[in-house]
């Protein structure tokens, strides 16, 4: 067990190392940042001086080590466009809004999927299954941001029932959460349905029936706990995509999250800010996935490599 965790940590460290290196290479591939930070009319000498003060003229290896130790201790450098403002501050201000949106939507989507999958299997109804999976597939064929636009059109423009822009209170959550949650729903209803179906053929299920348990009880107390395990893994792997997708949906609803900061950073060519965002998301991803893997091997001893 300790060995497994150690190997997993090593793997994670390697991933973080790669992500750091990619971020560093990206940042330097376009030349030294001073040219980006100064105005168009800056002289060669001014650019050189700024590079000198910021340490961009030092050997690359030295810069890389500085960068890596900085990031690991929480220092992501300053924004190129807002002098003196640490890039991480800009990210940290907005990350909670994005996380709240993404995680709420994830929880709602998963809860709906759980109810749908249980309904399919407790009723044993092929009709319900086709309904949910086909409905879900149709929803999945609509780009998330366009689904958001449709919701705005129906509920804000048409019915005038819900706010469509920014955060003005709890009701602001409804449309963006509905947009992301319905996309999450398909993923998990498919997964839960196929893993419940897989469990249905197992010996222990037959035993449970033999002991006289009712069908709903078998589904909920015997099959469900086993069927939930793959959800854990997929949810972990899905995290980065969930946040990335939330960034797009935020734009539809003018949600005050990461999306706005990042898109502004692109138009201002402020790589430092985007880099901080990318690194933070990647690290959250790596940490969550280690947690998932370790948790998984605690819950289900079968996956522990001997």
């Amino acid at each position: 067990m300790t060995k497994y965790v150690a190997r997993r940590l090593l793997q994670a460290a390697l991933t973080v190392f790669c992500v750091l290196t990619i971020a560093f290479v990206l940042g330097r591939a376009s030349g030294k940042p001073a040219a980006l930070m100064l105005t168009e009319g800056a002289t060669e000498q001014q650019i050189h001086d700024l590079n000198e003060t910021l340490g961009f003229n030092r050997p690359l290896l030295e810069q890389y080590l500085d960068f890596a130790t900085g990031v690991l201790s929480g220092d992501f450098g300053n924004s190129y466009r807002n002098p003196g403002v640490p890039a991480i501050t800009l990210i940290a201000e907005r990350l909670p809004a994005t996380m709240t949106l993404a995680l709420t939507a994830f929880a709602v989507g998963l809860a709906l999927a759980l109810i749908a999958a249980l309904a399919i299997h407790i009723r044993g109804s092929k009709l319900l299954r086709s309904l949910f999976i086909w409905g879900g597939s149709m929803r999945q064929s609509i780009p998330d941001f366009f689904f958001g636009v449709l919701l705005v059109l129906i509920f804000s423009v048409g019915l005038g029932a819900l706010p469509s822009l920014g955060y003005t209170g709890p009701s602001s959550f409804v449309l963006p959460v509905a947009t992301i949650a319905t996309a999450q729903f398909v993923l998990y209803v498919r997964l839960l349905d196929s893993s419940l179906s897989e469990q249905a053929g197992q010996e222990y299920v037959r035993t449970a029936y033999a002991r006289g348990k009712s069908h709903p009880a078998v589904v909920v107390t015997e099959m469900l706990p086993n069927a939930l395990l793959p959800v854990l893994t997929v949810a972990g792997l899905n995290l980065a995509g969930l946040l990335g997708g939330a960034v797009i949906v935020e734009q539809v609803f003018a949600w005050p999250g990461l999306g706005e900061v990042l898109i502004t950073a692109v138009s201002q060519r402020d790589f430092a800010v985007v880099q901080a965002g990318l690194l933070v998301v990647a690290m959250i991803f790596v940490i969550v996935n280690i947690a998932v893997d370790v948790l998984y091997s605690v819950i289900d001893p079968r996956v522990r490599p001997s």
Partner: protein
Amino acid sequence: MIPTVTIAMAVETPRVGRRRARSRTRGSVLPFVGVALIASMLLFVLIVPLLPGFDPLAQDLSRARLLPFADPAHPLGTDAIGRDSLSRLAEGGRTTMLIALAIVAINLVLGVTMGLCAGFFGGWMDSFITLVSEVNLAMPVVLLLIAIASIVGPSALLMVIVLGCTFWMGYARVARATAMSLRDRDFVLAPQMLGAGAGWTIRKHILPHVVPQMLILAVTDIGVVMLIQAGLDYLGLGVQPPSPTWGGLILEGQKTLRIDPWPAVLPGLAIFLVVVGIQFLSQKFTAEGTLPLRKVR
């Protein structure tokens, strides 16, 4: 959120029960509906540019914001600066589909090459590809594209390169498994014994075995890629204005949503029809929903 589609499909790769699936879908009309949908969208984007008056960029402020069917010269109306919506929809569709095809083609070639090498040679090649997948999963493609765009500026080419290099893992996984299962078979070992090189052996004796699966995967992926690409165009990270794309048109249309929803709704509908068409078509190859349900007692 969209990339996870590929992951989910890999988790429940529907190779098992293929025969049963075939017999189940034999009578199904869905794949034909899919082909019909895709064909009609293709015809639409190919024929509209041949019509008289086709011009996706010409502005006419005196005829701005016409509703659909209001003017015979502009069957679908015009946008906020009087550009013909029908022309822009067709031109945007052509761009969107071409870019999706280019991205999938790059993914396909990259994934098959990496997967075959990993499976055939094993060892460090294999570990390397696993590592690349890990790193790739940790960096959402949206953020990666945003990062690079913040250095060099957003462009269509950049989007093609970034998406082309980040969605090949599905192909690699399947190609790797096939290559591993074949590398010790006699028909692969024999030519090597006679002096054939590894590259030749892979091309001649292993590649043909993965091509059908790869093409099926590629068809499904066109839909997935189109959805992501539309999202990126919507963020302004893909094709740059004034060139229309379906994602970009939705962004433009959203600004006038309260006055006239059509400019936003039509391109969205177009994306939906193509992606649904591809989903229907790929039903022919997958066994979704065929696992037995336990009877209620």
